[in-house]
């Protein structure tokens, strides 16, 4: 008994070191902008840089629209597949996975080639590039948004709930927005946070479509040009992602509490 517990702790410790050591070193390095003292000056510099705020705001807005469009696309699609076209599920799941298979660099060149020409001309205006970027991110985040929503939908009896609502006089819109969406709260929230985390740090597509306006390319630029600030920005983006993950955990815990309660019938 003692032996098992020793070895399991041993491996946990090894794993933690592997994970935290580089992070701690980065953090330590980010504090050494001045010789001989530990200082947060690198962080101050980052926070003082107006470009940091403008790029992060830009990426957050793009992420917000990505979230809205992907949820509006995926939830009704998955709903309809579960209700009426279960034979299409495999196909749609395969399509949703394609952005895993195709490297982002290939995807972005393809997008620019297709949508810069007639009839779209999306790259001729700033607004056009924003649209293109959001569309690209919707595709990029499709694998986990689809998964999360599909899992969430499998946890509720979509057919019976739909039929119950129909017999009570509800139309399609009412069913989707008052019955289906609210019951996917946890699934939607986790896909929202995953999308946020992905979109904020994304580099390849952002740098080709909108350039330095987005946070990903900005981070990369800092990384190339400024020694200590690049480490501090790494820590900042890590912290942000972790905060999002923790929010997901909190909501997931809420869900498990509910389901374990409903188990006691």
């Amino acid at each position: 008994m003692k032996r098992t517990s020793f070895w399991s702790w041993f491996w946990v410790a090894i794993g933690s070191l592997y994970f935290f050591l580089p992070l701690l070193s980065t953090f330590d390095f980010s504090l050494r902008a001045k010789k001989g003292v530990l200082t947060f000056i690198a962080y101050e510099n980052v926070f003082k840089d107006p470009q940091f705020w403008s790029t992060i705001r830009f990426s957050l807005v793009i992420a917000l629209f990505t979230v809205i469009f992907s949820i509006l696309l995926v939830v009704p699609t998955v709903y309809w597949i579960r209700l009426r076209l279960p034979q299409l599920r495999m196909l749609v799941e395969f399509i949703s996975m394609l952005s895993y298979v195709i490297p982002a660099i290939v995807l972005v060149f393809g997008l620019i080639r297709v949508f810069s020409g007639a009839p779209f001309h999306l790259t001729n205006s700033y607004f056009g590039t924003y649209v293109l970027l959001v569309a690209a991110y919707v595709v990029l985040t499709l694998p986990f948004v689809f998964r999360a929503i599909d899992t969430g939908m499998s946890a509720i009896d979509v057919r019976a709930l739909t039929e119950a609502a129909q017999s009570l006089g509800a139309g399609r819109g009412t069913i989707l927005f008052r019955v289906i969406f609210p019951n996917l709260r946890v699934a939607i929230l986790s896909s929202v946070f995953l999308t946020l985390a992905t979109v904020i740090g994304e580099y390849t597509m952002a740098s080709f479509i909108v350039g330095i306006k987005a946070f990903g390319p900005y981070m990369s630029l800092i990384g190339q040009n400024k020694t200590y600030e690049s480490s501090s920005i790494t820590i900042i983006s890590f912290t942000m992602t972790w905060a999002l993950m923790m929010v997901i955990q909190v909501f997931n815990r809420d869900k498990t509490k509910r389901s374990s309660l409903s188990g006691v019938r």
Partner: protein
Amino acid sequence: MAFIELSNISKVYGTTTVVEKVNLEAEKGEFISFLGPSGCGKTTTLRMVAGFEQPNTGSITLDGADITYLPPRQRNIGMVFQSYALFPNMTVGQNIGFGLQTRKLPKEEIKQKVDEMLAMVHLESHIDKYPYQLSGGQQQRIALARALAINPAVLLLDEPLSALDAKIRVELRLEIRRIQQTMGITTIYVTHDQEEAMLLSDRVVVMSQGHVEQIGPPSRIYNYPATEFVAQFVGQLNLLPVSAVDMASATCTVAGHTIRFETSVARELSESPRLAIRPEELQIGFPAAGEEANTLSGEIASVLFLGAIVRLRVLVNGVLITADIFNERNITFPRAGDEIVLNFSKHACWLI
């Protein structure tokens, strides 16, 4: 014209006919059950009345209006599901009020109706709870209240008690009957449980393999089954091989005994007719006298104690017959191997 009419409705999936030429007329306020084994088409028929499926042929009218192809939400039909199908994101009160909200009724009216419905199912104190905080039986009561809140023309129940345990099932079926009687609502109830169907219904529709076998009041279905399927599906039945039939004197030979049977319900006999008799019609012990009495004598093969009844398996010249007798506290059980005499009236048996 009847309140609900199903005329010749059929439903085909691919090459399988699930429902075949079903006809039914139900009067206002009537309680009708669809009874049959799983896969007999009873649920599909109910779903066509609800509007979730559409028949390939035939028509459905409700109060004189053709609703065959009307979408479910325009039918004003209340539906209760086996899985309750309560909206998990809404409280009990919101669930019951949902159908009234989609009808855009004023708030006070909705609240009043919700309270009234909750009182009807005796769950007033649970108005702010969520479905997952309730037991299965309570959830199904709420589902019933929700379906009735919209004042539906017809109430449809699709095996509403199948997911509940035995005790709650018995309680709730009485509740359903009480509420149906007070509201006087026309009800169609799907079940595979014959006891449930007989206890609840004004008329039972026995279905098998997509078609209707018999429609009638429970006692008629039980005592005068129209087909062999009904006879065997509803209740227990002995089917004894018959060696000789004399229709003129209404007698036949079963296991070496001459038996008088009833011919009041004329029916075409199959090639190898059998004598049908319910186990509870057989009396043991004392030989009965008179024109109408039949007697079989044999040897007890086994005795099964079922609580209220004791089931005897009796071998009569190689033919196994089941006889049920009532339990009594001071009963002396017959034992396997005992010689026994079985008596029954000629009205108790008929030829199939």
